[in-house]
């Protein structure tokens, strides 16, 4: 028997969309919608919020920018002035008062007029300053008579002098007997004396001349 289906093709039973396909399509549509929705939330929500937050932060930063520039200028000024002030202070501290040193040295050598302990005099004096090593004082000296202990006494008094704490080193006592027949007493002990002072300013890598105010 031949059966002829006169229904249009889409209404024919065999051609209807199967429930599986329909279900799958529905599920697919839901998944796609959810994915698109998620994207939309992330893109327009989170990303937008992040952009807004950034804009706000940038605006706040821009507000402070002028003050920061002012701060940096102040900082630069402080560094500049501070450097100059420090240099001037270093210059001022670098000075040794030689009139004070000489006064103290004269007192030590004069020893309040006590000639028994030592009676010394010097043949000259040379002072050379070195900012890194400190000043050097060289004085060839003499003590009256041939009593060697007088040289030691003088050295001992120099070690106790007011300027002694400022010394980095002092030459050790040595002597050479000299006779000057014109003088009374004729004998004396000649000795070299060298005083090395500590540097007045502790040098950094740059010297005073190079560092100033820079």
């Amino acid at each position, binding site marked *: 028997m031949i059966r002829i289906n006169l229904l249009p093709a889409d209404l024919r039973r065999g*051609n209807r969309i*199967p429930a599986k*396909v329909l279900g799958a*399509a529905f599920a*697919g549509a839901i*998944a796609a919608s*959810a*994915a*698109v929705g*998620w*994207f939309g939330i*992330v*893109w327009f929500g*989170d*990303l937008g919020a*992040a952009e807004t*937050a*950034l804009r706000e*932060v940038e605006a*706040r930063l821009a507000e*402070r920018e002028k*003050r*920061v520039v*002012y*701060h940096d*200028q*102040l*900082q*630069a*000024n*402080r560094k*500049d*002035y*501070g450097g*100059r002030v420090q240099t*001037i202070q270093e*210059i*001022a501290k670098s*000075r040794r008062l*030689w*009139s*004070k040193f000489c006064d103290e040295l*004269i007192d030590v050598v*004069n020893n*309040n*007029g006590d000639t028994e302990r030592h*009676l010394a*005099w*010097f043949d000259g*004096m040379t*002072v050379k*300053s070195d900012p890194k090593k400190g000043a050097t004082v060289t004085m060839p000296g003499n003590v*009256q008579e041939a009593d060697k202990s007088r040289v030691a006494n003088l050295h001992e008094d120099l070690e106790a002098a007011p300027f002694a704490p400022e010394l980095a080193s002092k030459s050790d006592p040595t002597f050479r007997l000299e006779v000057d*027949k*014109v003088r*009374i*007493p004729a004998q004396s002990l000649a000795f070299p004396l060298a005083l090395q002072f500590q540097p007045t300013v502790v040098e950094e890598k740059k010297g*005073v*001349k190079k560092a100033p*105010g820079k």
Partner: protein
Amino acid sequence: MANWTQKKQLLAIAGGAGAICLLAAGGVYHAQVQIEELGRITLEKQQAITVAEGKIAQIPTLEKEVIILRENLAEYVKILPDTKELVAFVRMLNQFERQSGIVGTGLVQKATRADKSKDRFLAIEYTYDMTATLWQFLKFVNLVENYERFVSIVDFSIQTGGKGKNEDTRDGDIVHTMRVTMQTYTYNGKPAGKEVEIPDYAAQREALREEIWKRMQAIRIDKYEHRGHQGRRDIFVDPRERGDLRNQGPSPAEQRALVEKYVGEVTRLREILQRMRRPDTTLFEQYALEKGLREGIERLGSEVVVGEGRLSYAPYRLRWAREVIGPLEDLRQQIHDVARTEQKRADPFLPMPELEQMVAEMERDCGSGMLEEAKRRYEAVSNRLNVPTTDPRYALAVAAKAWHHKASTALDFKTMDIRVQGVVVNRGGRSGVLLNGEVYEEGDYVSDDLLVKLVEEEQVWFVFRGLTLVRTM
């Protein structure tokens, strides 16, 4: 699609939905990456804001610091000369030369580096040659060191003079040859960058005035007052005597004896001063000691001038200055201070207890015949006894004066030339006395102020200046 099998259709739907989901997931991933990037940038900016806020918070402190430094720098650089002031400095050297007495023989400026613009502080050095005594040299150095502008003596040398017979001297001191290298700095005040404009600067500076002043103290340049000669020996001169020169003065041994003699004298005067100040010393002893001290100082003052001229040995000259001249000056000053303190006293009169004590002691002295002592006690403080009548001490002052009058009168009477050579005692009438060869009866005046009051066998009573006195046979 209608012809597709169901399987194909399912695959197409799943594929389509999956593609959309993948695209969405990719988009979400991309968005997340962007969000993270934005978050990172935001965080960085927030950190920048935190840093900026930190900086902004520092602004008031920085402003203060900059104001203080700027103001101080303006003051600090005043110690450094500018180019014009270097000319003034050279002129100042000339003034120092005159003040100290040195003789300058040359001033040379050491070469400075060519590129001045690079250095903010440029060192300038001068070398100064001179001839001077040690004391002149030290005075010069001290004047340079105490100059208002910063000048540092970096090098110097002393070549001793006076090694031969014909040494060059000034004011009796040997002249040496010196070379001094002085260093100063010029300041380039040009700012390194833009000098920031601080709002409300004047008001802030005013508010920080105290702090600015405090910081300014940190730059004070050390100064020193040179003590001068003070009798000290020039340490660049051989102090030994020259055997080839005739010494007309005393030998060193004699000079030493001379120094020790006067040192002893000064010590004695010092002891007197100490005794004067002891709490157990009475006022009258104090006055006597002070008188002795004053006289001693006066005498010593005139003697030391002569003595000093006899000292030629340098070491003894220092001892002389330290142990004789110095202490003598000190004694003079102390006596002067004592006098000034006395002048400053609110009450110029003798205090009541001391006045009472003095009257009692004068009475005792007069009673025991120590008339000189009584007189001396009064005269030592007489300038403090002019007590006004309204003062409660007036009666005591009058009593003291009366005792002084009695003692003085008695002492004058004692010294009078009255020789009692005989008496005639008449119980019923006026008795008589033979004085210095002349006869006087009771009631007769021997002189204007001396009357014979009563004649007895063993003694004759006189009235002398209103005071009854007895002269025994």
